[in-house]
């Protein structure tokens, strides 16, 4: 079952109507598909193409540009260790070596039990807290090898499942625009006049 579920289809349709052009919803929808199965399947891309009115090839073209999208199953926890300059200066390489030994896989690999995928990542915007890593895009800062060992044990024991959902689930809270508050997206060619508040007067 790789097409969107009924429940996700409702969410997808809510997202699509927020944009003046449907294709704009593609990246949020790809995240939704990845949330459903942990990766993006061919069937999901066909379905998304139908939803926003483009070919599945166009969906594939967009999806493959972005690093966060995966096209085959990976570990439940994606451990991204930053290796860009600030982290490199503060010992990111040693941390990566330690992680490789601890998990028994090289960067890019997935453990046999399907729990962890280890990856080298680029700057994660936590440069003052180097070296840093993300587990399914949740931060761990100033990470020592001992911290990493503890993190892996906690993840294996399921102690962090409240904070860190399985790979694919990004934000746990979505934007919801109430129908009675929404202005609504309008195709640009249907807008010909200036916004009503640009009338030289105060709006309040």
């Amino acid at each position: 079952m790789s097409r969107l579920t009924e429940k996700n289809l409702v969410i997808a349709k809510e997202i699509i109507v927020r944009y003046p052009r449907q294709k704009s919803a593609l990246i949020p929808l790809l995240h939704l598909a990845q949330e459903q199965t942990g990766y993006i399947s061919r069937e999901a891309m066909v379905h998304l193409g139908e939803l926003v009115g483009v070919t599945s090839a166009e969906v594939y073209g967009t999806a493959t540009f972005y690093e966060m999208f995966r096209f085959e199953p990976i570990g439940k926890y994606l451990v991204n260790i930053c290796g860009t300059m600030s982290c490199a200066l503060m010992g990111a390489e040693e941390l990566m070596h330690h992680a490789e030994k601890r998990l028994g896989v090289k960067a890019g690999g997935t453990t046999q039990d399907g729990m962890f995928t280890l990856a080298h990542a680029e700057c994660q915007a936590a440069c003052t807290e180097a070296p840093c890593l993300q587990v399914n895009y949740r931060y761990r800062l100033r990470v020592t090898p001992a911290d990493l060992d503890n993190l892996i044990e906690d993840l294996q024991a399921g102690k962090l499942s409240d904070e860190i959902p399985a790979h694919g689930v990004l934000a746990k809270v979505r934007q919801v625009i109430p129908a009675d508050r929404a202005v609504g997206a309008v195709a640009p060619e249907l807008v010909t006049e200036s916004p009503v508040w640009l009338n030289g007067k105060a709006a309040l």
Partner: protein
Amino acid sequence: MSTTFKHAPGFVSGDRPKIVTSRFEFVDSFTIERYLATDGYKGLRAALSRPANEIHDDVKSATVLGRGGAGFPAGTKWGLTPQQVWPRYLVVNGDESEPGTYKDRLLMERDPHQLIEGCLIACYAAGLSQCFLYIRGEMALAQERVAIALNEAYAAGYVGKNILGSKFSVDIVLHWGAGAYVVGEETALIESLEGNRGMPRLKPPFFPAVNGLYGQPTIVNNVETLANLPWLLCNGVAAYTAIGTKTSPGTRMVAVSGHVKRPGVFEIINGTTTFRDLIFGEDFCGGIKNDNKLKAFVPGGGSAPWFTADQLDLPFEASQVGPAGSMLGSGAVIVMDETTDIPAAALTLTHFYAHESCGKCTPCREGGTWLERILRRIVDGDGTDADLQQLLEVGAMICPGDFPHAANEKLGLTAVPFPYKMTTICFVGPSAFAPVHSALTLFRSEFESRVTKRVTIPVTSVSSVKTVTTATPVGVHS
């Protein structure tokens, strides 16, 4: 549990004027309750109580500089849209990913309502009918905090139809990226927002203010830039320009990372705070780790040419940092002490830009990876002295002429050298060369000691002048 903390994680407070980080001391700074209790949405109310064009004039006269990298005044940018072309859009650039930069994420995680209020003020002032808030994909917490804040703001009547009961109506749509550094470039951001591969567009004709999202006039502003607006509207232009200097008013957020005693994110006074204050000041980083000596520092994010101790007394003022041969960029200082392996440090940055090249322009796609390969073999001890020249030659194909260049040749280097002279559409290409060029210019001996000399052996059996060299031709192996 205490309701305040001395320092929010990553952020270092201090006895300085605060424009965008005033709520960071509260543990619940991201909630609408805290926001409303601390002047929240008062700037919006102040803005809506006056005609839109007056608000635009305020932003212009306050010279709110763009905080994303180029430092272009926001009010001027808003004024570049063509007359009577509708609709116009606001796209918020929350795709913070420049190496060393860490500020927009804090602003989104710790004070999302301030950003939302800033977006509303911008939409009102510049007549923008829809706002798209593009947040970097890897920032799950920021996405959650902004989503919750938007849901609260919609419910409370601050966003959506008839804001505060007025005729002003605008939707703010939260949009997540999916991991691509180049999408921080404004035209690539727009491509990505249209559901495409995030490749930059050629300027001209695709200047976003004229021809942006869906071909319509589009304002692309950085998160920190917009976060300044609520305070500006609450306190007025005079209060804003009283902080900082005439050409760089207000404050700005700067992240100082690397080999310092207390790395952190600071809100500093624009224009007057110097790099020495930041790196050595007791209110800031308190000096170099282990009391080592400073070797070099990156003054404005991974794309910026490096400085050494000679430039420590320069202030955060574009008109002084520009002529000195670098840029303030996105407010990111990375400090290297005397123990730093310079070629290896440069390699981490060049690898970053080579990896993040979108592949659209050949000089960046091929040149960036070529620079990385050469640098890697030097770091691994397999380089030759000819590689050093080769690095410069490849760099000259990405950004020809002397490096860095003046943005405006008539003005010389008194203008900020941004964007660089380049054979690529965007600055990712030159950015791959900036660390190489800086490292090689400032610390050539460290490269020379790592490479083997090409030994020239006379070949006597043919003619008296013919020679061969022993090393493999450069660029062939990798």
